[in-house]
């Protein structure tokens, strides 16, 4: 392709990539378009939302063209087929994370899945059914989060605390972008009702040592919710190994459609929670005086669900399984190592987050001395390199590291070394454009 021959460089080694990038790119129709006057699209924003392979689009279209009907409602043939496909998709998606189908609840996205749990915990306070009051959160209770959470895994817990009088506590960060677990035992205590923590940071790339956190939480009887929005798409995740009580993730970040997310919950925990949203499809018996509810997962799926999107997400899971999640992880690890080395070669560029690939995923945030991230992003965009700029919905993180915002590149299965070379070249162009490039010779000298 457009790959330029590069001199062997000390830091930036191109290890063989486990995935066949050219073949994969051919599966993504959008990657053949150009941007900004004919530039090749270098999509480095999969962390915000991923692009979709044709098989996902086909699965959605096929559902609408062949058996569209409301699942779990009606007894006609189409409804039966729609229900069959919807439930088969649930089983496929569950198996992907090592969970039985009845522990998989479909939501709109990770954000809604987290809100579902947060509202269930406060609805538990006033639930008339004894069985639903087990996890009620109230005054004197504590919820623990970390300073690296996405707003989606922070604001719902702040709000839960405001509704119930509980207290929010958090684990801080170290200077190299990791969780500071030195006070784990004093932050997670007998008062803790739930610990909410991300598996992979969307801004720092850090992969957290969940084992220690889960062990401590369970020691004190607290529930653990893992935000898998950035891990499930990029590494093998098995809930039986995770040991947590909840896992959330978003379909749109893992090659699936928008409008579908997943809440996995340990069955006995789900079964003890009252509903979040109520209405059709989640009830057992309705009388004017009151209603009773279905067992999980139906209890948490009020209304006609996002059937086509769920089926599309199952197709995405099949696509990822065919590639192999181990290989996806290794592919991104090789890209991350290369990108960190390439960025380290550019004077004035500072990576915010772990500097190497140890316990680190592929989200790379960086600053460029003398150029605001918005301006970096604008120059990159002009060259067809699409990254995200800003606080990445993790405002406390940028504040913690004393920067107003960062530029962030994220990778996926179609990312190749040529994309990262384009990124590094574009960053240098941004420095030149804003007149902050140090006249360097290292590129030639290697």
């Amino acid at each position, binding site marked *: 392709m457009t790959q330029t021959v590069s001199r062997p460089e000390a830091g930036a080694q191109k290890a063989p990539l486990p995935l066949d990038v050219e073949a994969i790119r051919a599966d993504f129709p959008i990657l053949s378009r150009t941007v900004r*006057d004919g530039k090749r699209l270098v999509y480095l924003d999969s962390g915000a939302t991923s692009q979709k392979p044709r098989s996902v689009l086909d699965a959605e279209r096929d559902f609408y063209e062949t058996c569209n009907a409301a699942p779990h409602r009606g007894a006609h043939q189409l409804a039966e087929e729609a229900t069959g496909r919807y439930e088969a998709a649930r089983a496929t998606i569950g198996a992907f994370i090592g969970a039985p189908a009845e522990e998989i609840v479909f939501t709109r996205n990770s954000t809604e899945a987290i809100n579902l749990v947060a509202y269930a915990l406060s609805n538990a306070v006033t639930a008339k059914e004894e069985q639903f009051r087990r996890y009620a959160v109230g005054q004197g209770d504590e919820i623990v989060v970390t300073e690296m959470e996405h707003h989606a895994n922070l604001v719902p817990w702040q709000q839960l605390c405001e509704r119930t009088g509980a207290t929010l506590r958090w684990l801080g960060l170290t200077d190299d972008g990791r969780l500071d677990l030195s006070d784990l035992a004093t932050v997670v205590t007998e008062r803790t009702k739930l610990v909410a923590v991300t598996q992979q940071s969307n801004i720092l790339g850090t992969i957290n040592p969940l084992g220690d956190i889960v062990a401590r939480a369970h020691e004190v009887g607290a529930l653990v919710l893992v935000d898998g929005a950035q891990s499930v798409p990029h590494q093998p995740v098995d809930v039986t190994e995770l040991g947590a009580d909840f896992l959330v993730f978003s379909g749109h970040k893992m090659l699936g459609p928008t409008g579908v997310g997943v809440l996995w919950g340990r069955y006995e925990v789900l079964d003890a929670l009252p509903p979040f949203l109520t209405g059709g499809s989640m009830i057992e018996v309705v009388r004017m005086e009151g209603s009773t509810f279905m067992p999980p997962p139906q209890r948490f799926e009020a209304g006609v669900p996002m059937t086509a999107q769920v089926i599309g997400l199952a197709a995405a899971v099949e696509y990822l399984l065919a590639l192999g999640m181990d290989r996806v992880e290794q592919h991104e690890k090789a890209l991350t190592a290369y990108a960190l080395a390439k960025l380290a070669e550019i004077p004035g560029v500072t990576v915010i987050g772990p500097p190497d690939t140890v316990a680190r995923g592929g989200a790379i945030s960086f600053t460029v001395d003398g150029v605001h*991230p*918005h*301006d970096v992003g*604008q*120059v990159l965009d002009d060259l067809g390199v699409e990254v995200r700029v800003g*606080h990445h919905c993790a405002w406390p993180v*940028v504040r913690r590291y004393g920067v107003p*915002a960062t530029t962030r590149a994220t990778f996926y299965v179609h990312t190749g070394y040529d994309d990262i070379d384009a990124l590094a070249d574009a960053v240098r162009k941004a420095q030149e454009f804003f007149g902050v490039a140090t006249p360097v010779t290292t590129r030639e000298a290697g």
Partner: protein
Amino acid sequence: MQLESMYQEIILDHYRNPHGRGLREPFEAEVHHVNPTCGDEVTLRVHLDGDRLADVSYEGMGCSISQASVSAMYDLVIGKSVPEALEAGEHFMTLMQSKGDASVAEKLEDELEDAVAFAGVSKYPARIKCALMSWMALKDAGARALSVAHPTTSTGGQNA
């Protein structure tokens, strides 16, 4: 590259050497505005002499567009009455909505002086907010300063 159409030399000059930067006394109103999508911030003070803007002082962090915009605004509004400054703000808003239509920029050249250089920003919807932030802050601070200066005629709502 289309970049030059957005980052006019005038804009880069204002960014590198901002006019009127720094918070000064005296002032009748101070506001703090944030662009929640990117975290850019500006703190802006207004000092009136009668109904004229005797000083607009500011401090902030943000991208070149937001920083240059506040500097160009400073040049444009000092000495104007608050209503005149708000009218300039309306013109600037019109420019931001012009989607790169050069004829709009041409018509507003006299009214906007250096600020007309931001015409190229109107082609980039994601950046329009950056250019507008300081103008929004000025509108807010101007109204507050007037309500301090003329409490009885204000529309500030404290008479409700």
